[in-house]
Structures are given as structure tokens and as C-alpha cells.
């Protein structure tokens, strides 16, 4: 099986792709931090999928007799002001966090990639206008911009996702443009064009796939920032609305009890830190494997 994956002369496209994926995976396994990061993300995904099995209590079930209980065997992370089990809420919160980062990546990365690829491929005035707009967005403070967008769109998790995506795409546009320019005049592009491929086909089928690896690195590294922004919006009451167990919103609820019942606010914070660290580790590992040149600079 591994011989088939590592075959130097793959007999099908699928074999080549899988072989490359296997090599990246094997290289990641040799990087301890990347393994730790990958493990954290894996735990997050498992928690999100199997939340009903892993959480001992309902995330929204109130139990006023047991409100603000400190961490114990029955309630691993204690209970909040409505007697809800914080551990169960953190487990269910993994679903919300995972959904937010996935949605932001799914919305922002393609927009950035297409803008950047068009800009780099056509050059000239197209490039100047598109990059001008990109640079204007890049030079804005992201969090403030996201806050203002949510204020106009109205609080809520969907609007928070849209607002974060609006502030996240320019970085990917820059990356895609830089990559596109390096092989815009390459012979394989000229060959495809001579065969009569349209610009759209060249960009979609031949340019964008080559931007994929640097975009994946950047998206993974950006995840921590996206999680923090989403949690910040939740903390300010602009993201997920109660009773959704969003980690930032949970910290916000615990604010009033921070001096006496510290666990209400601190526990969701540990979850945020752990997941952000996981994405940082995995992103660093991916960069070392996929783009060794950049890794040296750090």
C-alpha cells in the first residue's frame, strides 16, 4: 500500500495526488508540534460530531438548585449562573467554533483566491484596481471593521461570519496574486492558452490549484485569529446569541462572577486558547512541510 503511494512513476492522477498527500502527512508526523496541533484539531472535530455522547448534561438544561457550583466530579468545570454544566456547554461550543472557522474559510478563501488570481493573471489596470481595493481593506483594523459590519447587519452568528469573512479575504488575494505572477508567463500556461483555453479555464484549472498549498498554510495560521475575533464578537454580545453555548459569549456571562466564581469565565477561555494553539502548531508544521523557504525566515 505504502509502496503504491510512494511509487516514483504513478500510473494515474489519483495515485499521484494520494502519493503527495501521503508524503505531506508523513512529513507532518515527524514534526512533534504539528502532531500536537493536529491532535487538538482532531479532538475538536470529534467533540463537535459526538457532542451528545460526550456531554453528560444538556447544554441548555437549567438546574437552578445547582447554580454556580465549583468544579467537582459531577460537574468537571462547574456550573454557571443558571446551573448549566459548563463542561457540556464547552463540548457543544466546539460545534459553533468549528462551524464559524469553516464557514469563514469557505467564504473568504475562494473570494481572495479569485480576486488575486485575476489580478495577477491579467496584470495592468485590472491588477492596479483590484490590488488597490485589496490594500485598502488590508490597511483597516480588522476587528473594528468586523464590529461595524455586525452593528449594521445586526447581531447573530451568521452576520458575525459574514463580517469576519469580509475582513479576512484580502490576505488570500495578496498570496494568490504573488503566486500567480511567478508562473503567469510559464510555458505550461502558454501551452494551455495555445490550445484555445479561455482565461476563466486557465485560472480555474491551472492557476488556482497551484495557489492551493500556500493558501492552506495561511488559512490554518489565520484560524487562531478568526477564533479570537469570533469569540470577541460573542463576548460583546454581537455574535452567537443566548442560549447558544458559544465560548466568547460564555466568558461574557461569567464576567459578573469573575471575582468569586472564577470557573464560569475561565473554563471557556482555556478551550479557546487550546484550539487556537492547535491551529498555530498545525499551521507552522504545514508551512515547514509545504513551503520550507518561508519557514527558515521565522
Amino acid at each position, binding site marked *: 500500500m505504502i509502496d503504491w503511494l510512494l511509487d516514483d512513476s504513478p500510473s494515474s492522477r489519483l495515485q499521484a495526488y494520494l502519493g503527495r498527500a501521503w508524503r505531506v502527512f508523513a512529513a507532518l508526523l515527524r514534526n512533534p508540534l504539528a502532531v500536537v496541533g493536529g491532535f487538538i484539531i482532531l479532538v475538536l472535530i470529534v467533540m463537535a460530531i459526538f457532542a451528545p455522547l460526550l456531554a453528560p448534561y444538556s447544554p441548555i438544561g437549567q438546574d437552578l438548585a445547582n447554580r454556580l457550583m465549583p468544579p467537582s466530579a459531577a460537574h468537571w468545570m462547574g456550573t454557571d449562573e443558571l446551573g448549566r454544566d459548563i463542561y457540556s456547554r464547552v463540548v457543544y461550543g466546539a460545534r459553533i467554533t468549528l462551524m464559524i472557522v469553516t464557514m469563514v474559510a469557505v467564504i473568504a478563501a475562494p473570494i481572495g483566491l479569485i480576486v488575486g488570481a485575476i489580478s495577477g493573471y491579467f496584470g495592468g489596470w485590472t491588477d492596479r484596481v483590484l490590488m488597490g481595493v485589496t490594500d485598502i481593506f488590508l490597511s483597516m*483594523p480588522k476587528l473594528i471593521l468586523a464590529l*461595524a459590519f455586525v*452593528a449594521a447587519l445586526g447581531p447573530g452568528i451568521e452576520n458575525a461570519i459574514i463580517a469576519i469573512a469580509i475582513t479576512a479575504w484580502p490576505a488570500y488575494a495578496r498570496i494568490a496574486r504573488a503566486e500567480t505572477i511567478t508562473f503567469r508567463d510559464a510555458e505550461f500556461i502558454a501551452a494551455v492558452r495555445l490550445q484555445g483555453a479561455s482565461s476563466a479555464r486557465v485560472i480555474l484549472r491551472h492557476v488556482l490549484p497551484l495557489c492551493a498549498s500556500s493558501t492552506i498554510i495561511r488559512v490554518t495560521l489565520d484560524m487562531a485569529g478568526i477564533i479570537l475575533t469570533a469569540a470577541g464578537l460573542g463576548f460583546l454580545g454581537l455574535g452567537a446569541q443566548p442560549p447558544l453555548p458559544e465560548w466568547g459569549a460564555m466568558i461574557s456571562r461569567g464576567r459578573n462572577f*469573575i471575582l468569586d466564581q472564577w470557573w464560569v469565565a475561565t473554563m471557556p477561555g482555556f478551550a479557546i486558547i487550546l484550539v487556537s494553539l492547535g491551529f498555530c502548531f498545525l499551521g507552522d508544521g504545514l508551512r515547514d512541510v509545504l513551503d520550507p523557504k518561508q519557514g527558515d525566515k521565522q
Partner: protein
Amino acid sequence: MSFEPSESATDAREGLLTSQLLGSAAAVLRFCVVTAATFLGLLAITFFIGRVVPIDPVLAVVGDRASNEVYEAARQAMGLDRPLIIQFFSYVGDVFTGNLGTSISTGRPVTEDLARFFPATLEMATIGILIGVLLGVPMGVLAATRQGSWVDQLIRVLGLLGYSVPAFWLGLVGLAVFYAGLGWVAGPGRIDIFYDGIVDPVTGLYLIDSLVAGEWDIFWNALDHLMLPASILGFFSLAYIARMTRSFMLDQLGHEYVTTARVKGVPERRVIWRHAFYPIRIQLITVIGLSYAALLEGSVMIETVFSWPGIGNYLTNALLNADMNAVLGATLVIGAVFILINKISDVLYRILDPRARK
């Protein structure tokens, strides 16, 4: 055939000089255009958020029970019946004359509010960046010269935490530990109520105002309140500045001229500070500028946690009250300061670094 090449050489030299001058004039012009375009872009974004994104700004004012006549009258009074581009230009005109509208939650003009709240933000961010620079730069240098030492490991950990710890959470934990637990610092707010309003607000910066008035009690009290939020902001800039300093220094120390200096017997201290650190100070200015701008942004969260009466707190209060004039005004000011600091550090970099002038 002449043996006097001097004339053409002088010509060539003059030509070169002229083209250099023209080149730098073009660079200055280009820079101004880019900066102006960025500010215009910021205005376009806030305009877009204020006028285009909300479903109906008129309804927000007149309420949904208003009759059609009232609605139309309000629409015309707000100028919303005009073409969008005209509305945009009148918005830009308003901003440049300092008219940002009236805040519905404070009842005062937004410009007035912002001028009152800005010094508090400035004071906190400035102390924060001072902490970041004064601790971060030496730590970064130390980490680069002693790779693998505890400072090096510490910077790695701090750098990672700087990326993954939510600022508002750290603020809450800081309050719980250092205010409630240990009692080392004063609690939320800028100053104890007891001292409030004694000193004339000259600059709006309490530390300076109290010193000017010679009121040491108030100075120490203000510092007591400022310490924790500024340290938490400072932590984030420290994490970034130390990491960047370390990587710049490592880059310099790998150069052959450093080896040469060592070989010819230059003391190690001098090699580090004079030969290796001196060239990176220009890059550091950019890093510090970026970090300062980021602190202004980060102060939004910290101010909310510490009930610090700055622009960030003003912004989040306005958000909760759906006070769009105040939201957009605060966004505009924070955005403009953010862009301005970035551009200034960019200009400084170009002026100070001969390589960037080309």
C-alpha cells in the same frame, strides 16, 4: 573628435541627478495618492456600512408605524432620496468639517464625544507600547544571542500565547488574580471616584494632568488603575516585538561582517549592539508602529473589560445601543489613526533606510 568627455559625463551625471529627483518626487506623489486613496477607502467603507447595509435607515429613525408622508419627509430630510454618489460626497464633506452626527445615547455630537474619550485610549495604548518596547526589544536581542536559553524558550511561548489568548479573557483573569486575589492593583475605571474631577483636564491624560497640577496622590492612583490594563495590552505587543526582534537579530548575526568583527576582536557586547542591533533599528520602527496601531485596536476589548472610558468602550456601548452615528464615528477615528500610524512608520522606514529609497 574631442578629448573632453567631461561635458557629456557632467550631462549624464546631471541627468542621473534629475531623474533621481524626479524619481523621489514621483515616489512622494505616489505615496500621497496611495494614502489619500486609503483614507477615501475607509470613508467609503464607513459610508457603505452606514447607508447601504442597514435594511432601512429611515425606518430606524421614524419607527415602523409612521405614515407614508412622515416617512417620505424623513427620507428627504436625511437626504436619502439623492443619488448614492452625491450622498457619499456630502458625507465626505461632513466628515472633513468635523460633523459626524449626533449620538442617540449621549445626545451630544459624536465629534465632541470622541475628543473627550480619545485621551484615555491614547494613555493606555502608549503605556502599553512602552512596556512592549522596553521589555520586548532587550528580550528579543537576548534570545537571539543565546539561542535555546530560557529567554529564547520564553519568547517562543509568549509569542504563541500572544496569538491564541483572547485579550478580554486575559483582562478578566488579570482582574480576578491581581485585583481581587492579590490586591496589587486598583480595579476597573480610570481613577477612584474620590479623586474624580479634581484635576483640570489639560491634556486629558491623567498621568500628565496630575503631574502638571502637582497632585501626587492622584498620579499614583491613576497609575494604579492604569497598570493592569496597560500591562495586558503591553503583553500582546511584547510578544510580537520580542519575536520580531529575535528574528531580525538572528538574521544579522548570521552575516559575515559579524564574524569579521568577532575575529578582529571586537568585544561581544559591541558586536551585538553596535554591529548587529544598529542596522535593525529601522525595521524595528516599522514593527513598533504596527504594534502600536494594533494596540489601539486591541484596546477596544480591554476597555470594555476594565470599564475604561476610552473610544473602545464608547464604541462597544454604541454597538449595544444600535447608535450607528457613534459606531461609525468611532470606527472612522480608530481606522484613521490606525492608517496614519502605519503610513508614518512606512515613511520613517523609507527615510531612514537608504535601501528602501530606491
